[in-house]
Structures are given as structure tokens and as C-alpha cells.
């Protein structure tokens, strides 16, 4: 009796696993960014990179303005790739780019910026990676397009020409 119950239990577990795998097959395996339109930006307090001041999220993001929040790090190779695109975007002056320096050391980050240029209006120093978690980031690089303190779009992985075009179109 006890044996049969156990068998039944194991079979039902495997059946559930089967159903989940079956459903998983139908899902796409491409990691598309979640588009959470009009989701409020998370409120957080963190340290600024240059001044070491502690700021609140509301002090960084003004209403009625476009921002691009970019999570980056000097040790992240794709961040190097997208950096020139960020520089271009900064020069359009239509959008302010806020950097979140993720799990990095100040020295490395500074030499990274002096090498490749600094596109950021402000940089949040996120040594422990806490702020990135609050934003629901999966890794570096990742970018969020923000308007009116709301997230319009999220880009996972390095930005490319295509996504920059899209951003330029959206902020018009």
C-alpha cells in the first residue's frame, strides 16, 4: 500500500515536470526584454560616484524629462562596445544619461571613463550591486528608458544601432 502511494506520488511529480517542459517548448527561448510600460521607477537612495553624496531617486529624475539609466561596469566587455553609442546619444543633448556603476572599483571605473569618455550626466556608485537589484536588472549592461519617472522601455544586453535609433525616435 505504502509502496503504491509512493509510486503514485512519483508519477504525478514526473507528470507535472513533463507538462512544464512541454509548455516550455512552446515558449520562445529568446530573452526578450520585458516591456513594462508606465511602471514607476523604483525609489532608492544611493551614493554618487564623484561627490560621494547620498541622493534619493526623486532628486535624480525630474518629471517631464527623458532619461536613460545605463548599468555598466569597467570589467564588462559588452559595456565597452556600447560605450561609443552612449557618447553619441549624449551629444544629441535631448536625453540625460544616468550611469549605475555596478560592482566596480572607483579606480578601474575612472580609468574606463578617461579612456573612452564620460557620457553620463550623473553616476550612481553601486559597489554592492544593490541598486541594480532594485531595478530588476539581470546583469550588465542593461539600460532603461525613463520619462516622467516611469520606465518606458528596458534594454537587456549592450545597446546597438537599432536600439539607439529606437530611443532617438521615442524621445522626439
Amino acid at each position: 500500500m505504502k509502496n503504491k502511494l509512493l509510486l503514485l506520488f512519483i508519477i504525478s511529480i514526473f507528470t507535472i515536470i513533463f507538462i512544464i517542459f512541454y509548455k516550455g517548448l512552446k515558449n520562445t527561448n529568446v530573452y526578450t526584454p520585458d516591456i513594462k510600460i508606465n511602471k514607476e521607477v523604483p525609489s532608492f537612495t544611493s551614493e554618487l560616484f564623484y561627490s560621494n553624496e547620498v541622493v534619493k531617486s526623486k532628486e535624480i529624475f525630474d518629471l517631464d524629462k527623458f532619461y536613460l539609466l545605463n548599468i555598466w561596469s569597467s570589467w564588462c566587455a559588452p559595456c565597452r562596445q556600447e560605450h561609443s553609442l552612449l557618447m553619441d546619444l549624449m551629444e544629441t543633448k535631448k536625453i540625460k544619461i544616468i550611469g549605475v556603476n555596478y560592482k566596480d572599483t572607483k579606480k578601474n571605473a575612472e580609468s574606463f571613463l578617461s579612456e573612452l569618455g564620460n557620457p553620463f550626466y550623473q553616476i550612481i556608485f553601486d559597489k554592492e550591486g544593490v541598486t541594480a537589484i532594485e531595478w530588476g536588472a539581470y546583469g550588465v549592461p542593461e539600460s532603461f528608458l525613463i520619462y516622467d519617472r516611469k520606465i518606458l522601455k528596458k534594454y537587456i544586453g549592450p545597446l546597438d544601432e537599432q536600439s539607439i535609433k529606437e530611443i532617438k525616435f521615442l524621445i522626439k
Partner: protein
Amino acid sequence: MLFSIIGHYSLILGLLISLTLIFFSINNFKNSKSFDTKILSFTFLQFILVVVSFLCLILSFIFSDFSNETVFNNSHTTKPLFYKISGTWGNHEGSLLLWLLVLTLFIFLFLIKTKNQPIKYKILTLVFQQVIIIGFFVFLIKTSNPFNYLYPIPEEGLGLNPILQDPALAIHPPILYLGYVGSSIIFSSALAATSLNMISKKWASHIKKWVLISWVFLTLGILLGSIWAYYELGWGGFWFWDPVENVSLMPWLALTTLLHCVLVLEKKLVLTSWVIILSISTFTLSMCGTFLVRSGILNSVHTFANDPERGLFILIFLFSLIFISLFIFFFFHKPNQSNLNNFFWLSKETSIIINNWFMMYFLSVVLVGTVYPIFLDVLTSEKISVGPPFYHKLIIPFLIPFLLIMAIGPKLKWIKSNLEDKVYLISLLFISFLLSFLIVKNFNSNFLINTILISSALYLFFVTLRDFFIMKKNNISQNIAHFGFSLLILSILFNSLFSTEIITNLKVGETFETSTTKIIFKNINQKKEKNYKSVVGNFSIQNSNGKIDNLSPELRIYNQPNIVTSEADIKTTLLSDKFLVINLVQNQDYFNVRYQVKPFMLWIWLSVLLISLGALISLFKKEYEK
């Protein structure tokens, strides 16, 4: 064209032979006085047919016959011959044909090598194996036929993914498959033995050599994959906890545990349930790995084609096998009650059982880390990826008792042991701890855990090393394998603790200097090969002690398909590897330069070879004794 036809019909004939074989087997099973020799000849014929089919595919690749869809999708006329041939199994269809080849090879070898076992057992093993073979035949012919015909015939093929064009990767799949698929024979014979209720000491020593064979191939296959990742992927790591690596690690853990259970079963009739369940899970985990990487449910280099129909087929097939084996286990297996509670706390078998539980724990960590993202995605449509920190946090602390038991266990006796004459064990523990303290002293991060971890690995190292000198010769295989394992853990630990890295962007002619190292980017050359063009950067690297190394990493631009890969230049010495890789920085004259010094890299590979050598000795020692 001709080859495609021959190959295709060989496959269909092979499938028909499977059905015939099952028919013969049922007859022979009813009347099992003598083993029907027809069965043996048909099994051989089936193997030959699959060989013919496989050769036809290889020939189609060699002659670049683009009327064959598989060749068209994965080859190109400008490719070197070596990669044309290895392209045969560098794709979904061809690799499945290789599965089938190994499946039929193993059952044939099993039938001719198995003597002194009941005829019914041999026949039943054949039947279970044929069920698996039929499944793969149908899968191959129906959803992934390697001989699909293309008309009009294309002029040129699409080419093989450049990162697969590497010598280590050319032999990695066949070796790994010998391990994966080799476990099918363990699966079939465990089911057969359970059905006939003949799990015994005698059966254990019979199945042990099959476990050892699969284990050696699986280990070497994983090693080759890891070496490839180190050379080719350009990150300087050798294990990334990528789902695809994990699915090869899971059967390995199950198989390693199985090997130790079989060793116990050989001496004493216990752990029978362990042995059966592990035999089943090793093969189902291998199949599960195939499902995960082939169905496109996970994204990786190994995902050759994203075709839900294929995934569905493997999924249904896999779960049918799981259900069949569960029924057999529950209805036929009668655990031997008298022996169940018969373990003395201080004995060899107790230590093996404890470490088996640790292995099962490691296995479940890897399993959860691999499939949890899929579950989460299905249930909540949230996408996450599980990275190295998860595995490190959950696995590393438990390595400490695992290593200690691995050192002490073999020193104990079977059945019942005592603690006399074990002073050296304690003194070696003390020495290991002291030495480890001196090594880690200069590092402030995670001081405590590193000291304990290194001392437990050193402990295993010393205990096994001591055995080489005072040995009674009888267990050299175990000793070599455990010594190799301690060396592996030590090399990995030292490698991760003492590796250093410099990342910078340089133009040609520039120099980058830190307090210890000076990197000079001297110049670049261009090179042209048959299947790619390349840019070679020449660097000279100067250490603080004035020693100069010249390294020349490459950027390769493959023509078919058009993909850029970076080839690291690695200078290997006995004590450390110097690893340099360059990448293009978009729209600029700069190259991204990554320079790493990685101590004991060579020892990671060598120690895995040593572990495999241990298993090989055990295998041949058995043959010799007969």
C-alpha cells in the same frame, strides 16, 4: 546523391532489424535453453548498417554533396578536410546518427562480451536496448533525417559555425557520446536484472566494467569540452556553469555515485535500490541533456536547431522510458530486508554512503540551477539566469567534509573498522592545516573558508600521496583516482585564488604599465587561410623580474558563415598559463586587450587525466585477473 540513398535505406533496414530482433528475442525468451545465434548475427548486421549509413554521411561531407540538406547547412567547399569530416557530427542530424552508432555498437559488444550470465538476462537487456534504439531510429528518420534531398542542388554550402572549427571540439562529441550512450547499456541491463530479480554481487562485478567504460569516456569528453571552452571562448575560464556544461556534469555525478555503489554491492549485498535508481537516472539524465540542448528550450552553442517537434518527440520518449523504469522498479524490485540496517558506523561502506549523499546533493544543486529558470519562465513568465555564485555558494562549503571523508574512507575496512594505528591520519591533518594557513595568510578575502578548504584538499593529497609509498598494491586504481581528484581541487582553488587579470584598450605601438607588468602592443600582421582571414596582434609582455614573453593573439574573420572569432594566445608552462586575447572596439583604432596569468592551469587538465587513468587501471586489472 548515391550516398544519401544508400545511407537512408540502411537506416530503414536497421529499424526493421530492430523489430525482427525483438521478435526473435521473445521466442528465445520463452524457450531459453540456448542462446539463439541469429540474435547475435542480426545485432551485428544492425551495427554494420548504421556504420554504412554513418560512412555515407561522412562521404557526402567529404565530397561536399550539397544535394544533401545536412551537408548544405553545415559545410562549405573551402573548409579543410578535417573539419569537413568533423562537421558530420557537428550538427543535429549527424550527431544523432552518432548516438545510434554508439547504441548499436554497445549492445553488440555487450552480447559478445557477456559470458557466465543467464540467457534470459542477456535477451532482456537486448530487448530494452532495442526499445531505445527503435526510439532513436524513428526520431532520426521522422524528424531529423540526415539524408534529406535538396533540389535544385545548391552551388555552395552554408558553412560550419567557426567556433566549432577546433581540433578539441572535433573529437569532443564522439568521446562524450561514448560516455552518454554507454550508460544506455547500464540502464538496459539494470532493468533486465531487476525484472529477473538477479541483482547480486556477481551482477555487480559484471556491470562494473561497463560503468567504468562509460565513466572514462564521459570524463574525457567533459575534459575536452572544457579545454575547448578555455581556448576558444576567450574568457580564460574553463567551466562556466552554462546549462550545456551542467547537463554533462549531471550524468557524470550520477555515474560516479553509481560506480561507488557498485563497488559496495560487489562486496556486500546492500544498496541494491541505489544501484538500480542510479543506473536509471544516469541514462535518463543523459537523455534529458539531449532534450534540453536540442529542443531549443535552452539557448546555447549546442542548440543546433530550434524545432519544437523534435523537442516534443524526445520529451515523450524520455518520459516513457522514465515511466517504464519506474514500474519495473516498483513491481519487480524486492529489497533484501535482512541486510538493510546492517551498517557499522565506522566502515568503508558507511563512508561511501555518506559521500554518495553529498554527490546526490551536488547533483540536485546542478539540476535545480539548470531547470529552475525554465520552470520559472513557464509558471510566471519571468526570465532569470542562474550564474556561478549560486553554484559556488551551495557547493563549496560541502566540499570540505566530502574531501575529508574521501581521504579517510578508503583507509577503513569493509563491514567494521576501528581507529587503531591511525595516528598518521591526524598528524597529516595537522600538517595540511598549517600549510594551508601559510599559503592563504597573505590573502584577506574569505580567509577562514579558504584555509579550511585548502587544508581539506591538501589532506586528501597527502593521505593519497603517502599511500603510493607504503602500498599493498591492491588498490592502486582507487588511489590514483582519489589523488587525481585532490590535485584537481587544489589546482582549481589555486587557480581561482591567484589568477590575475589586466584589461585595457590599446592602439598599435602603445604600452600599458602596472607595477608588475608591462604590455607592449608592437604591431599587427594580416594572414590569409583557406577558410578565414586573420589579424594577428604581436605583443611583448614584461614581468617585474625582467622576463619577456611574446604573445600573438588573433582575430579571425571566417568567410562561411561570416563570423569574427578571437583566438587567445596562451603560453603554457608547468606552473602557470599566460593568456592574452584581443577584441575589436567598435569604430575605433583601439583593441580591447585582456591579459591573464592563470596558475596551475595545466594541472587541471592533467589531474582529470590522472583520475581517468585510475578508472582505466581498474578496468584492465579486472580483465587481467580473469
